[in-house]
């Protein structure tokens, strides 16, 4: 039964690797687990429901759309599960179930399968679905929607985007009633399901970096850029840490911006991409009308990736030598 896999016909270089898409996706799922568990502690069983519905409908949407398009089934590679998890982590726990299903259909059918399936999507499917849901149901994605059911001793009013981000501004600094840095770090604040606990997300990120699933360049440069700009803008380490730990920055930088399909290949490209993400996030957070800008900035940079790839195209090995030889031959 293994016969089919023994002979692989492909173009050079013939590098053999035990890595498979399924294996990578499994690693990402494992890395996302701590944030999921943390979210159930913060938001209660409703968070689990949203996660389950999101994953199930993403897988089902992938299965049905592949079937309708008469293409090979790809649900076995678990990428739809990852999309489902990421989508759920980007939604408030109070969102109605059918809206989660609508988001899953947008992510899988419109953004992923209509462009050709895994590896062909032009932006991160889960993020675009989140943005579609924000524009489709503004009331569900703002004001109070983010408040958890058992937020430990905390009761903050929700604001559009990630809640803690509504409680800090360039003019006033950190406002009264904002959660402390420790709460932000542990995740006992209001916000989207998967974004609240910086600790859980960092654990997942470290696991991914150790397993070499993601390169540390994008998360480090992205978070570093935001930290630096915020430090300059506020002139205050507390406010800088608040901006770094709060909102969707951690989940965005670790899990969303590092998506293989929609991030540059070369290290130089990755740095430019992450710098752009950080800069846009800061611009939206500081000067935009929305309190949070992680999802928009990643989507915008996703779209710019093909251009970044063009600028940072590595020179082909041997190109210089060839030119020299030509010169010599001319002489």
């Amino acid at each position: 039964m293994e016969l089919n896999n023994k002979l692989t016909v492909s173009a050079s270089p013939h590098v053999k690797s035990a890595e498979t898409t399924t294996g990578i996706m499994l690693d990402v799922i494992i890395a996302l687990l701590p944030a999921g568990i943390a979210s159930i502690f913060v938001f209660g069983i409703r968070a689990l429901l949203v996660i389950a519905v999101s994953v199930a409908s993403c897988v089902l949407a992938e299965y049905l759309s592949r079937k309708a398009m008469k293409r090979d089934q790809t649900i076995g590679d678990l990428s739809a599960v990852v999309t489902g998890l990421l989508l759920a982590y980007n939604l408030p726990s109070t969102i109605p179930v059918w809206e989660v299903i609508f988001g899953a259909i947008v992510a899988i059918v419109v953004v992923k399968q209509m462009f050709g399936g895994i590896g062909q999507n032009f932006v991160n499917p889960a993020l675009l679905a989140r943005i579609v849901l924000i524009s489709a149901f503004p009331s569900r994605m703002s004001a109070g929607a983010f408040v958890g059911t058992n937020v430990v001793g905390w009761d903050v009013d929700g604001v559009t985007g990630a809640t803690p981000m509504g409680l800090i501004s360039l003019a006033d600094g950190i406002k009264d009633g904002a959660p402390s840095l420790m709460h932000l770090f542990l995740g006992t604040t209001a916000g989207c399901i998967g974004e609240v606990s910086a600790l859980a997300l960092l654990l997942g990120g470290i696991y991914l970096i150790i397993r070499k699933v993601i390169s540390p360049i994008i998360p480090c440069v992205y978070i570093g850029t935001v930290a630096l700009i915020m430090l300059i803008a506020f002139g205050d380490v507390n406010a800088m840490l608040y901006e770094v730990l709060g909102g969707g920055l951690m989940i965005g930088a670790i899990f969303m911006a590092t998506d293989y399909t929609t991030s540059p290949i070369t290290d130089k490209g990755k740095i430019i991409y992450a710098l752009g993400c950080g800069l846009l996030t800061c611009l939206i957070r500081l000067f935009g009308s929305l309190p949070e800008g992680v999802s928009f900035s990643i989507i915008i940079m996703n779209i710019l990736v093909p251009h970044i790839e063009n600028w940072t195209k590595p020179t082909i090995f041997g190109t210089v030598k060839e030119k020299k030889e030509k010169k010599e031959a001319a002489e």
Partner: protein
Amino acid sequence: MAEKKTLGQEFSKGLIKENPVLRLVLGTCPTLAVSTSIENAIGMGVAATMVLICSNIVISALRKVIPNKVRIPCYIVVIAAFVTIVQLVVKAFAPSLDEGLGIYLPLIVVNCIILGRAEGFANKNGVLASAIDGIGMGVGFTIALTLMAAIREFFGAGNLTLKVIGYGTTLKDIFHLGETDVLSAIGLEPILIFILAPGGFFTFGLLMACANKIAESKGKPKAELKGCEACPMAASCSMKAEGKECAE
């Protein structure tokens, strides 16, 4: 191209096979802008159809008189005259429609369906054929617009305004819902993005895909196109430049 079509074919080609919006991708600006409610869509469709028929007839009748070099300004003058008539009629008899369509009513002057049919059809064909072409294209435009508006209005506002110039009813009234909309009444809520521009583009894309599918399934048999003719990359193909044909 050279084959003669019957008048029936001239009419029916505008419905799906050469639907101006979904297949020729003309007039997308008014399509996206006014397809937020069925009432506006039908109003826009009818107004544009009227202008299209009249301008096709006049331009076709004058096609031998109009000097080739200044034909576009001449067409615009003819079209603008009819748009003015239609606009005054709408203002007088259906002021609510005039309000709903706003700037897009006078902008029919530069609607590329009308200019496109003048340039592409009326200046080469007889008066009767041009009139029929205008009706077919106009009906096709109206159908596409109405279909799109129905989808966008139903999902985006949970309502359907089944009205023509103020007469008729709405889906809300049929079910006696008062202030709530149909989607909220069954436990869902309107998906606001469908009314907004991104939802317009999304619906437009889906309808275009459907129209392509239908036109393909009953259009030309595929065997008609072979070799480089059938290949979308033919223009940039290196093998064709060398005078060869690829295996496919």
